[in-house]
């Protein structure tokens, strides 16, 4: 363990994640506030940040629980949101193949949008799986530990933060930071625009189900557009 913590790749991963951790502070605070608003006690708030460990899922779960949505709807919404981890997992798998099974099980837990984005860039640039794995572990540990602190501070400081700061706006900003790089190319843009239009058109659905349905419609639109494009080219 100590040998791992002393590798330059682990340290680089840890240090390179710190700016993103700084950027995520307001998001973590908002998640903590959300947990408090949903009526969670401190242990529940920590359970969300430590076990779910996904800001998007935490904020949605808090909002839905506060609105009195049934447990099944909360789980379904968060599950669809979590589908993106399947893709990250597949993309990270080659980089983590050299690790032993217990290590794989441990580091997988730390897979998030931000750490994935940083480590996959590193792996693509160097192609060194062992270095990428340590880099990933460093980034993941930096993010997980700071995320717990952000959430707990948010949980307690929620009613101290002035509403005029509009802290909750940092949540869509966080997603915009993740979305913009994902929009390179026509097909992802088709998927995103479809989902964006659908989420408004379906706003009448109860319990924010428009979110899940719009997401699925966007995924289908992107996939169909890709298949049609290939058929077109094959002619």
């Amino acid at each position, binding site marked *: 363990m100590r040998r791992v913590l002393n590798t330059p790749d682990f340290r680089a991963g840890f240090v390179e994640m710190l700016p993103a951790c700084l950027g995520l502070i307001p998001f973590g605070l908002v998640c903590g506030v959300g947990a408090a608003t949903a009526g969670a006690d401190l242990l529940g708030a920590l359970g969300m940040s430590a076990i779910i460990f996904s800001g998007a899922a935490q904020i949605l779960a808090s909002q839905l629980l506060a609105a009195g949505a049934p447990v099944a709807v909360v789980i379904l919404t968060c599950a669809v949101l979590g589908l993106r981890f399947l893709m990250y997992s597949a993309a990270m798998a080659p980089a983590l193949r050299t690790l032993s099974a217990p290590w794989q099980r441990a580091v997988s837990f730390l897979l998030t*949008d931000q750490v994935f984005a940083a480590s996959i860039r590193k792996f693509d640039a160097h192609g060194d799986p062992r270095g990428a794995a340590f880099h990933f572990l460093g980034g993941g540990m930096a993010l997980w530990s700071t995320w717990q602190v952000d959430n707990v501070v948010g949980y307690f400081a929620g009613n101290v933060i002035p509403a005029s700061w509009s802290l909750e706006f940092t949540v869509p900003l966080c997603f*915009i930071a993740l979305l*913009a790089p994902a*929009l390179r190319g026509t097909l992802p843009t088709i998927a995103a625009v479809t989902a964006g239009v659908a989420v408004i058109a379906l706003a009448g659905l109860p319990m924010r189900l*428009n979110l899940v349905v719009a997401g699925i419609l966007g995924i289908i*639109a*992107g996939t169909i557009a890709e298949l049609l494009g290939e058929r077109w080219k094959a002619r």
Partner: protein
Amino acid sequence: MEGALKLWIVILAVGALNYASRLSFIAFFARRSMPPLLARALRYVPPAMLMALIVPMVLAPMPGVETIDPRIPAAMVAGVVAWRTRSQLQTMFAGMVSLWLMQAALAHLG
């Protein structure tokens, strides 16, 4: 159902599902390649889900705002910065500063 019980069911179920998704191809199907159609579809999960999350957060009506909603231009500025820099921190900074400036300007114009 009691609130705390409900919360913990959600924490454990979503935590388990997230962990299973994170672990999936790293551990379970490591020796197998992904079915091609699934691989395609998954590529569109981030753009579609993120957009579905962002749009209602930016467009949902804000109480007391009757003129231009400052969140829309602020989100656009953030989008341009995110596209150019790919930096979480700079996107956040640009978005919040534009929001505050717009709010101050609108308040000033009354």
